[in-house]
């Protein structure tokens, strides 16, 4: 039954204008994917209104003058608060903005969206998500076992509940090791002293249990793609990150054509029957096979790079979900094509922060974005 919240959309772009809601709107030291997804969609589907789901009035794309900003932004309850608060907030936004599709771009949001996906479907809102089983299989604490089952090399990882287990795990794996939060953050530890310092720091933010992981030093390869939910991959783009920040974020990447990586991706996605966007992260130590060390259940922040070379995965996602008859063709990314991330200063006014902070919403551009692309 389609019982979409009944109030008509009030956005003044016309009542028939459909909106896509996107989160993860900050491009900073640790860039989130939202602005890249927005730019990709706006490049080929400019008639959609983009609704930003924002967790902080200072998220950078709210101030962007480029094609990567939402047309309107709404503040959202933090994912930790749970699915009910998310659904309640979305109900208002969906009513007002005629949202037909939501693309969550932050790892922490995905479990909540899975919980409310049936209700969203009832309201006529689509959301491309993996199943809970798939998501659980690729969690940081389960990935090592998942890889073991598939006979795919992965850095040895142990879940530890306290300092005693932490030290024991690090001794067994051998230094250096990474200490990781179950959801976010990782720190390298070369000694017991560094191990304890890192664990204290991470546990303070993310609490126990933590993960101890074998540190592999090598080249990083990442694959962005779309799974069809039946075990096949719709399209991928594979890069080597050839400039990494101190926290491992890719600030430059180059396309590679590696049949081994393609085969690995196919095996992983087939086993998971993955639905929607994904990013596979591999490390290659000289003389050893590729080691899968993370799977992200969303587009990565560099997804606008393949979009710019005619492999627009966000657009394919939108077209697939909304049942577009003639799909936009997608090129295969050719080895040697590359991106370099470029940071710029955006101008804003404190009034913008005040508006978002006090009202929980902010119209950014009602017409400008549409005019730019026309």
């Amino acid at each position, binding site marked *: 039954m389609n019982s979409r919240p009944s109030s008509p959309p009030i956005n003044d772009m016309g009542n028939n204008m459909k909106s896509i809601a996107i989160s993860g709107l900050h491009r900073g030291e640790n860039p989130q994917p939202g602005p890249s997804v927005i730019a990709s969609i706006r490049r080929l589907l400019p008639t959609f209104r983009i609704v930003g789901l924002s967790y902080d009035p200072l998220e950078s794309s709210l101030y962007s003058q480029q094609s990567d900003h939402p047309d309107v932004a709404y503040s959202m309850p933090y994912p930790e608060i749970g699915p009910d608060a998310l659904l309640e907030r979305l109900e208002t936004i969906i009513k007002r903005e005629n949202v037909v599709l939501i693309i969550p771009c932050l790892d922490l949001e995905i479990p909540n969206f899975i919980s409310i996906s049936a209700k969203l479907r009832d309201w006529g809102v689509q959301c491309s998500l993996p199943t809970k089983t798939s998501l659980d299989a690729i969690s940081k604490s389960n990935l090592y076992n998942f890889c073991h089952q598939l006979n795919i090399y992965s850095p040895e990882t142990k879940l530890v509940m306290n300092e005693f287990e932490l030290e024991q795990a690090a001794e067994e794996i051998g230094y250096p090791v990474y200490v990781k939060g179950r959801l976010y953050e990782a720190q390298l530890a070369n000694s017991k002293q560094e191990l304890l310092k890192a664990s204290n720091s991470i546990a303070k933010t993310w609490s126990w249990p933590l993960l101890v992981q074998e540190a592999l030093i090598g080249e990083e390869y990442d694959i962005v793609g779309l799974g069809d939910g039946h075990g096949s991959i719709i399209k991928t783009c594979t*890069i080597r990150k050839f400039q990494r920040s101190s926290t491992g974020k890719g600030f430059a990447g180059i396309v590679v054509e590696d049949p081994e990586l393609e085969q690995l991706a196919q095996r992983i996605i087939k086993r998971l029957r993955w639905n929607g966007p994904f990013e596979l992260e591999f490390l290659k130590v000289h003389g050893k096979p590729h080691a899968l060390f993370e799977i992200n259940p969303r587009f990565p922040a560099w997804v606008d790079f393949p979009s710019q070379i005619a492999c627009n995965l966000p657009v394919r996602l939108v077209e697939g979900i909304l049942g577009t008859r003639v799909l936009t063709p997608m090129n295969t990314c050719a*080895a040697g094509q590359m991106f370099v991330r470029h940071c710029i200063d955006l101008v804003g006014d404190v009034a913008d922060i005040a508006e978002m902070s006090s009202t929980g919403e902010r119209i950014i551009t009602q017409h400008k974005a549409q005019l730019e692309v026309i």
Partner: protein
Amino acid sequence: MRNNVAKKHNLQELRFYGEEFVFNTVSGMCYRISSTAGFILHSLIAGAENEQLVDLVQAHYDVNQATAVRDVELLLNNLVELGVIDRHCAP
């Protein structure tokens, strides 16, 4: 024959930009190489066997055989170590 196939396979991954810059399309690694290394790589791609490289280097650079043998061995080892070519191409 098998060795030749392996050799060709690896070398086909290399893409040259001028004489001194090589990109490996599979590993994504970029290398600045010397003109002698470039000459050796081009010779291998053209089908030269490892044993022929010494003669080719000797003729091209007008050096004695001992120098050519040393340079070829050093360069091939260096190229393998860097991952520009795989071990099938090593002497």
